[in-house]
């Protein structure tokens, strides 16, 4: 047994593609080994910005001989009337190398076929592997591909080397004009020198000597350890949200050397978000904090290469950081010559989205929605006025030089400028928070105005894009609809801020129609609501609360904010014996009254005579007003408990009473009683979904 090592050497792959490509390659190699019955041990993947590597351990030299069944002609065409093999069958046997006497007949889906059993001899693994190697690079896909040579082959970046070793045996393959060899290259330092490798173990060893660490996990550990060593003695640390950047940096280097650089004094005077953007987005470097969480005028960066001459690299990076921060300071100073209000007037030069007009039009719509907030949210007139002001200024920063330069700072820059100009804190926060949550990990807005502005903005986007006729069913999400939808759902559910989405969406459609055309307004209300419902289901699925949600799904969307409390109440009642009984009874009630409308009250002269039916009626009529009262004051646990009180009389009713009585009047009275129960229980929960 020997190990198999495969390397695809490329020009620098985009960091964001590397992990996924490594995973794909491992999957494909494993699938091919299995497909050809090649015995193997673990299959590991490695990668750097310049290479995708697979190490499959313990490959058996030969595959085992196998017996397989081959399906031949139908029996009817395989034998003639006398039962002798026909030319068709003889041909099949010749082709498979079997004796006609060794064939047999099997029924397949009601029809008889001739089968042959034959032995496939063991094959050399190396030959089988060589046969599938050229397919591998074709099977790896990237979000963006390119071509670079005459065959038109597509990959993320040009392939410059191929290598495969099975033990010490060099395997031969060719892709996109590149021939495999037993050589590779190390880290780019000075003149490239090719390295000859003799075995998988030798590959790992030789690359390490050539300053390439192929295991991304090891590079990550090295970066963390080196960073610790530099920062700890100074009492500094990295921020809490560095993990994404670290993932990226790991895939920007083949051999990491961490260094600490100095920032100019300007850095501590600029807004932290600006410094973070300059360093993290533009320079892939890390902000450094003291123990109190304040930014210190240093940054941490990772060189691709050794520590030799690292001071030169540090100085270069420092001067770039310096220039960029000065540039940002300059932009801020220039931008602030005018008030944020002045930038609102320039929003007609910025397009919101194709077919949906300008940012000026979007601002008008948001103001309009904010001004009518009492129609869909519980806001005071003061809160509504704050929301209108925030909506008016919400997109102004998009016209500033800073946001044009650093688009990810939208919202942030507007709030910084307004706050420096002495704007009201409520509005400052709302502008900053309107884009939250930008990812599943990020919190929802902390302020009321921030939440409402965020929801209005996202509903406007969602409505507009669905109104262009865009069909969101595919896996791609080019307009960020999913993020908008998730943001709306999370904001309402997690803040328990009651918003009547149905009404808000209706107003959003009206607003779009006043600022311009909506190419596809047909069924738009329904399409937006369906989309939001889909996001709600998804949200509770991810929270593993889908069973609980199923019991509450019947609620109108205006109740979305109450769902967590309702779930909490259900959760508390989960152990109650009566709840189980009630769930069964609710299901029976639903089945028996299927197709019948709920009854919100019972006539006084209803024909009920048996004690069980009378008891149930009495209990139900006593419970109904209490349940309605509890719901009004959002006391869901009490509402459930009151429903549970009906469990005993309902069970007694079903035990003793035949609903489908022969007498039509008796039967309909009993059904009406159950329709009334269906109504009462249905105010609180669909208990039947809990069985």
């Amino acid at each position, binding site marked *: 047994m020997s190990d198999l090592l495969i390397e695809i050497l490329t*020009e*620098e792959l*985009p960091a964001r593609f590397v992990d996924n490509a490594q995973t794909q390659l491992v999957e494909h190699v494993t699938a091919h080994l299995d497909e050809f019955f090649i015995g193997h041990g673990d299959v590991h993947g490695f990668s750097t910005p310049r290479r995708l590597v697979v190490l499959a351990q313990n490959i058996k030299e030969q595959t085992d001989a196998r017996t397989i069944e081959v399906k031949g002609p139908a029996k009817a065409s395989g034998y003639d009337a006398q039962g002798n093999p026909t030319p068709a069958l003889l041909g099949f046997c010749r082709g498979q190398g079997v004796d006609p006497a060794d064939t047999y007949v099997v029924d397949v889906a009601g029809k008889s076929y001739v089968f042959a059993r034959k032995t496939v001899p063991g094959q050399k693994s190396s030959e089988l592997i060589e046969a599938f190697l050229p397919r591998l690079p074709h099977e790896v896909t990237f979000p963006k591909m390119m071509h*670079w040579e005459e065959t038109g082959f597509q990959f993320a970046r040009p392939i410059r080397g191929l290598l495969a070793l099975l033990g010490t045996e060099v395997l031969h393959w060719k892709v996109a004009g590149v021939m495999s060899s037993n050589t590779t290259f190390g880290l780019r330092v000075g003149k490239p020198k090719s390295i000859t490798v003799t075995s998988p173990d030798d590959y790992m060893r030789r690359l390490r000597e050539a300053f390439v660490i192929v295991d991304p996990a090891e590079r990550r550990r090295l970066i963390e350890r080196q960073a610790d060593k530099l920062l700890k003695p100074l009492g500094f640390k990295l921020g809490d949200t560095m993990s994404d950047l670290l993932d990226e940096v790991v895939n920007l280097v083949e051999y990491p050397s961490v260094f600490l650089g100095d920032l100019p004094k300007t850095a501590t005077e600029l807004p932290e978000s600006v410094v973070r953007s300059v360093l993290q987005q533009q320079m892939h470097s890390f902000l450094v904090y003291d123990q109190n969480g304040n930014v210190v005028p240093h940054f941490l960066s990772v060189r691709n*290469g050794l520590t030799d001459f690292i001071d030169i*690299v540090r*100085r270069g*990076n420092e001067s*770039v950081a310096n220039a960029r921060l000065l540039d940002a300071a300059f932009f801020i100073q220039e931008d602030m010559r005018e008030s944020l209000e002045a930038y609102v007037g320039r929003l007609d030069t910025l397009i919101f989205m194709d077919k949906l007009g300008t940012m000026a039009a979007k601002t008008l719509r948001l103001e309009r929605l904010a001004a009518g907030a009492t129609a869909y949210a519980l806001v005071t007139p003061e809160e509504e006025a704050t929301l209108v002001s925030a909506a008016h200024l919400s997109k102004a920063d998009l016209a500033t030089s800073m946001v044009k330069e650093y688009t990810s700072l939208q919202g942030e820059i507007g709030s910084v400028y307004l706050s420096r100009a002495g704007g009201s804190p409520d509005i400052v926060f709302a502008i900053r928070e309107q884009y939250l949550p930008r990812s599943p990990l990020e919190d929802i807005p902390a302020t009321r105005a921030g939440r409402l502005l965020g929801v209005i903005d996202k509903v406007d986007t969602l409505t507009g894009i669905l109104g262009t006729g865009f069909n969101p069913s595919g896996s791609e999400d080019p307009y960020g609809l999913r993020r908008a939808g998730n943001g709306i759902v999370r904001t309402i559910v997690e803040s328990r801020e009651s918003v009547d989405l149905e009404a808000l969406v209706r107003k959003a459609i009206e607003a779009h129609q006043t600022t311009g055309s909506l190419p596809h307004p047909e069924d738009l209300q329904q399409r937006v609501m369906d989309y939001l419902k889909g996001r709600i289901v998804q949200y509770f699925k991810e929270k593993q609360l889908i069973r609980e949600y199923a019991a509450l799904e019947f609620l109108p969307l205006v109740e979305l904010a109450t769902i967590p409390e309702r779930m909490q109440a259900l959760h508390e009642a989960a152990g109650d014996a009566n709840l189980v009984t009630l769930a069964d009874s609710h299901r029976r009630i639903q089945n028996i009254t299927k197709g019948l409308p709920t009854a919100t009250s019972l006539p006084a002269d209803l024909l009920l005579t048996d004690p069980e039916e009378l008891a149930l009626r009495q209990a139900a009529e006593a419970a109904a007003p209490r349940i309605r009262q509890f719901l009004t004051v959002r006391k869901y646990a009490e509402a459930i408990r009151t429903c549970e009180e009906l469990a005993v009389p309902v069970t007694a009713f079903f035990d003793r009473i035949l609903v489908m009585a022969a007498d039509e009047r008796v039967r309909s009275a009993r059904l009406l009683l159950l329709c009334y129960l269906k109504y009462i229980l249905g105010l609180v929960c669909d208990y039947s979904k809990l069985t």
Partner: protein
Amino acid sequence: MNFEEMVSKLEHFWEGEGCTRLFPYDQEVGAGTLSPYTFLRVLGRKPWKAVYVQPSRRPADGRYGENPNRLYMHHQLQVIVKPPTTDIQDTYLRSFTLLGLKPAEHDIRFVEDNWETPVLGAAGVGWEVWLDGMEVTQFTYFQQAGGQEVPVVAVEITYGLERLAMFVQEKENVYELEWHDGVTYGDLRQQVERENSIYSFEQADVEALVTMFDLCEKESQRMIDKKLITPAYEYLLKCSHTFNILDARGTVGVSQRMAYLARVRRLAYGCANLYLENENHE
């Protein structure tokens, strides 16, 4: 090493790699890519290797000669290698040693950056190259031009000469660069930067420029109809620059902007089609 020396070393280096050394195209362009030496020559199947300096005007980036890093006009060294050699990255890295930069002493990175010029229907895949954190080159494999997939890929290497010179000369301000011994970049360019910024932000006559755009567009289209690629393309370049000034002047609304870009693109597609037609005839 002063600016002119750095430029001539790089030019000679690429000349040694088989590139034809050309002079800057004598018209205003926003980038070396717009020069017909790039845009037309990357079309079709014919091999092409060239190196040239291209002064590139971006009116909206003007800063009145006051910002140490931003310019109305900067200089690009443009290298086109079509089809690319398999060691093109190594060749490029070797060019640094001529500038006294030893790769082992620095951190040179190829960081993903894909480039697109919608106005030419051109797009490419590649990197920005970082030298100790400073972006000094755009390195691109052309994938599309004139709205079509290119049949033979060209590599475009665009050195940002001011950036690179600031790195080599260790200067924080572009105007302090030594162009020639005793002559600074500021001596040559600062006043020009100021004047051109004033012009494009404050003085440009919008009405006249709009008319100029219309006239140049008409003339370009007329030449496309006559199948005269060069004049057609040269009038396209005039359109493009005129639009850039209008854009900097801040008078172009969003929908207008899209319309202008579409008009230039239509001319670019027209020229590209003519060029390809010609190549197919040969």
